[in-house]
């Protein structure tokens, strides 16, 4: 039981609570101290003080105090509740839930504690617990619609669709009169129930429900889409077709509607004429519709394709639409279409009347199209691309788009330096456009110009953000910049700043995960339940997004590099070189630190003193702006797990993730897990060159197991290693791989790397790698990969190889780095 207070102190206690709610932390603390002066062992006051301290960021003071509060008043629900809240704030959800449950036991009637518990349960996906909590909350407040909806959600998320529907139906039964037609909460509840019926696969009932309960529903688009879908699934095709036509009238730029209409009309996929008739109908009905004109290009062939393509291209080129190529490039997997489109664009240029002004615009657009055509990976001829883009620029020397494409062509040549310069030229042609500014900064980062790039993006970041452009980009979760910035630092060997960025990115993803928290209660009040369910399901897998995988791979690869033991290479003088490099890096870091401090001082000096007390002052000072602490870790492989774990869990089908996992687990001597990654990688692509290297490495391990490997584990590994027969003779296996893939420089490179593992003389391997420069199919990116390999071996061949490669590909920036 809470310890009772005299009326005066009780009033003060209420003041603390109010102060806390209003974020008047100082006042709250002062009042708490007043009570504690009189009653030094008043548990509730101590707990409230702890809570306020925690909100001020002093959690190291808050936790001991909250614990002390509990020891003096074990029976206070307030003390337990606060204890739970503290745990929740440090994301220890398990302990928080335990504490809430204690609090609730002491005060079962507290709606507040019950609600906090329920939210946390759904947050950690403890659906059974959530059902319990929501049932209790419904019993306490059955008059609220949201109490019922919440219980239905709990059952729905737990997978019990019938029960979810049942709860909603029970509530509807209690309604004495039908809610107003414009009651958005009711309208949405109806559609939510409809989605649950459909999810059970009972489309007839879903349709009936839709046609009665949702007849005048406020979400017209959803009603139409559901109706069309159910009708089609029920085989009532004629009716489905009508509804798809209604949908197309509302929005003719939706591919799925056309496809479903074709299905409903039972038009066979190979009946191009009938299909085209539908698109023609909508092209006539909606003169400005793009899809109706363009989509037939996907399924037409031969002369029909040429005809339609010609009229589409002519129309778009006459208008000078710059996005034409972006709209058509998906057709390039068909070589006939690829060639035909090129021919049409060429013909368009030659048929132009040079005198006319409007034709000038069209001709520039056609030249631009062809420049993009020859720049595209499926039809690449960079010399021609240059020629066309230069002609286009001649026509319109101020075009941002043309210069941007020229920069892209340069990038594809490997000339990153010139590409960055060209992108900057494009940027200067339209200083008010952030898109070209972003592209320019990205290219500068590819060219390892971190400072310059930050200045570039700084032209558009909010000037008043404390901490400058980088702080704004961090706050606004600008993933692309932070990723490119980190990768550029990693390339330059600035491990600290690279790790700094990768960890900052990881934090952003953590924030995304936390973001859902408030919506567990918010959405119940707003009543938009389908959107809420959509969010919960997305949150369950959002780290499978390629933007996360890229960051995770960057970080893991960097940690792997840090974990490499230099002595393992067996070359002489490595130790010295290493020490020298470390010294250099440390010196550089010191300079960088000084520069940052200087800039910060300057910035503060420039600030308007009248505008003091900005929000940023409250922000914690970054103790490690250069990531030196991160780079100094003695446990890089353990740190790598922070990225590897979530990546493997969310993206098991990514071969890069499995490859990275194998490398980390092997070095951590977690062989069972390493093998799991290897087997998965083999399942995805057994011919992947990196996977081949790993198969060799693992077989070597089995042939020569470490003495401390328990026999049982060894037996398991042997049994689970799939390519055990073919790898019985590893040298032969590797030979065969190289012969099989002799046309692919990357596969050959992997085979050579495997040879080194198998004890072939380093000098011999180096020569073979160096020989790749003359491989018939070698491109500059293969040469870069070979160079990286030689560098990692600290080979004496590095310089000779670099020169040979540069002689063949003179402008490739990465070869001269």
């Amino acid at each position: 039981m809470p310890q009772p207070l005299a009326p005066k102190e009780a009033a003060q206690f209420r003041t603390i609570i109010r102060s806390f709610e209003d974020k008047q932390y100082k006042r709250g603390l002062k009042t708490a101290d007043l009570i504690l002066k009189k009653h030094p062992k008043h548990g509730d006051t101590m707990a409230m003080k702890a809570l306020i301290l925690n909100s001020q960021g002093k959690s190291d003071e808050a936790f001991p105090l909250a614990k002390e509060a509990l020891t003096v008043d074990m029976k206070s629900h307030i003390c337990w509740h606060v204890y739970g809240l503290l745990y929740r704030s440090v994301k220890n959800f398990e302990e928080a839930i335990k504490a809430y449950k204690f609090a609730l036991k002491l005060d079962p009637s507290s709606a507040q504690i019950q609600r906090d518990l329920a939210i946390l349960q759904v947050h950690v996906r403890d659906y059974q617990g959530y059902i319990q909590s929501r049932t209790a909350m419904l019993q306490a407040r059955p008059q609220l619609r949201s109490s019922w909806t919440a219980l239905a959600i709990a059952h729905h998320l737990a997978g019990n669709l019938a029960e979810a529907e049942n709860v909603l139906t029970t509530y509807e039964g209690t309604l004495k009169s039908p809610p107003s037609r414009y009651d958005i909460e009711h309208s949405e509840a109806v559609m939510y129930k409809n989605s649950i019926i459909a999810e059970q696969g009972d489309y007839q009932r879903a349709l009936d429900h839709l046609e009665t309960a949702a007849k005048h529903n406020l979400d017209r688009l959803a009603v139409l889409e559901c109706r069309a879908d159910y009708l089609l699934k029920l085989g009532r095709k004629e009716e489905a077709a009508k509804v798809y036509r209604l949908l197309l009238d509302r929005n003719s730029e939706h591919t799925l509607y056309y496809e479903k209409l074709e299905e409903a009309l039972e038009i066979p996929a190979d009946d191009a004429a009938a299909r085209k008739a539908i698109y023609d109908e909508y092209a006539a009905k909606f003169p400005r519709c793009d899809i109706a004109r363009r989509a037939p290009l996907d399924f037409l062939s031969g002369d029909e394709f040429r005809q339609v393509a010609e009229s589409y291209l002519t129309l778009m080129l006459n208008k000078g639409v710059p996005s034409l190529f972006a709209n058509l490039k998906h057709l390039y997997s068909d070589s006939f279409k690829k060639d035909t489109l090129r021919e049409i664009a060429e013909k368009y240029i030659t048929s132009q009347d040079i005198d006319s002004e409007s034709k000038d615009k069209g001709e520039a657009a056609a030249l631009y199209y062809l420049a993009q055509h020859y720049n595209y990976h499926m039809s690449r001829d960079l010399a021609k691309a240059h020629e066309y883009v230069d002609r286009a620029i001649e026509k319109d020397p101020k075009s941002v788009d043309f210069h941007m494409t020229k920069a892209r062509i340069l990038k594809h040549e490997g000339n990153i330096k010139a590409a960055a310069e060209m992108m900057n030229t494009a940027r200067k042609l339209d200083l008010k456009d952030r898109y070209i500014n972003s592209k320019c900064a990205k290219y500068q980062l590819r060219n390892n110009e971190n400072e310059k790039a930050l200045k570039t993006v700084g032209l558009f970041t909010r000037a008043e953000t404390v901490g400058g452009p980088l702080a704004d980009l961090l706050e606004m979760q600008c993933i692309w910049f932070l990723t490119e910035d980190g990768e550029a630092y990693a390339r330059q060997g600035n491990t600290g700043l690279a790790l700094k960025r990768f960890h900052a990115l990881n934090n952003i993803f953590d924030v995304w995960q936390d973001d859902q928290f408030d919506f567990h209660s918010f959405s119940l009040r707003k009543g938009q339940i389908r959107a809420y369910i959509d969010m919960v399901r997305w949150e369950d897998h959002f780290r499978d997004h390629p933007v996360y995988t890229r960051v995770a791979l960057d970080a893991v690869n960097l940690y792997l590099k840090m974990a490499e033991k230099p002595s393992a290479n067996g070359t002489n003088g490595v130790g010295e070189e290493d020490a020298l490099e470390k010294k250099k890096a440390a010196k550089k870091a010191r300079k960088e630190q000084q520069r940052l401090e200087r800039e910060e001082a300057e910035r503060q000096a420039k600030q308007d003193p009248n505008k003091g007390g900005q929000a940023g002052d409250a922000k914690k000072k970054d103790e490690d702006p250069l990531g030196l602490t991160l780079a100094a870790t003695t446990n890089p492989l353990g740190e790598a797990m922070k990225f590897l774990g979530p990546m493997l869990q969310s993206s098991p089908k990514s071969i890069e993730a499995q490859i990275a996992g194998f490398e980390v687990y092997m070095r951590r001597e977690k062989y069972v897990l390493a093998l799991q990654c290897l087997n998965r990688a083999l399942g995805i692509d057994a011919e992947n060159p990196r996977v081949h290297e790993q198969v060799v490495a693992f077989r070597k391990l089995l042939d020569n197991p470490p003495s401390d490997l328990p026999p049982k584990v060894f037996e398991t590994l042997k049994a689970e290693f799939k390519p055990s027969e073919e790898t019985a003779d590893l040298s032969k296996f590797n030979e065969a791989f190289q012969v099989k893939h002799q046309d692919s420089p990357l596969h050959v490179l992997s085979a050579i790397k495997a040879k080194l593992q198998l004890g072939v003389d380093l000098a011999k391997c180096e020569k073979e790698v160096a020989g790749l420069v003359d491989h018939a199919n070698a491109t500059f990116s293969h040469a870069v990969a070979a160079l990286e390999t030689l560098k990692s071996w600290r080979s004496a061949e590095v310089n000779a190889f670099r020169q040979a490669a540069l002689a063949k590909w003179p402008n490739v920036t990465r070869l001269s780095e």
Partner: protein
Amino acid sequence: MDIRLLTTADLPLIQHANLENLPENYFLKYYLYHALSWPQLSFVAVDVSRPRKGPYDYPKIVGYVLAKMEEEPTDGVQHGHITSLSVMRTHRRLGIAEKLMRQSQLAMVETFQAKYVSLHVRVSNVAARHLYEDTLRFRNEKTESKYYADGEDAYSMRLDLDDVAELAKRYADEEDEDEEGKTKKKTTTTTNGGDATAALKSDGVDEGDAVGEVGRDPEADGKEKKIRVAVGRGLGVGDLVEKVETKQ
């Protein structure tokens, strides 16, 4: 490019498009707030023909409109508001911005009975103003001095949605006819007046409105007999940064 309703899974790439195109940016929670408050109002333009890149592919967002309803309209009239609209430079002049706007406006009327829609546009943004003024027929209400963080003025524009309401009614009638199984054909005219191509520049409209206290629970305000310690509120509340900053 396809025009379709936004889903939660689109948000990271919508945020990316916004950051790449416009100077007014938001963290993901602000997008979530829109998607979970007025899921009917926001649309995206996606490239559906692009071949899948790997096993975890998300559709590329080439344009989006992020819209909302004004929660407490000062004039007491239900109306929508465009928070942000942009189209990637690589996909301009396909009319995408206009098509996104028309879908959003229709939903504003159908779902929330909006009478008008408002937005802010940079005075210097000629291309965006062309779209709003000439193609979509917005009119300039007033100039808001130094509306943007960099000190630029904004035009506060609005469009009465009477015509859209008319259109919505016609769609509703057609639906009814369809359900009643009538076959009588109606001539449908296109909704697109003129043939102005929306040459929208990347800086469309944008602004930094307050997000409200997403986690606030009105239930917690109820006075009860026993002393209730509303300790959960302080932590659960997502007072989103923009609001805090504009207050100061």
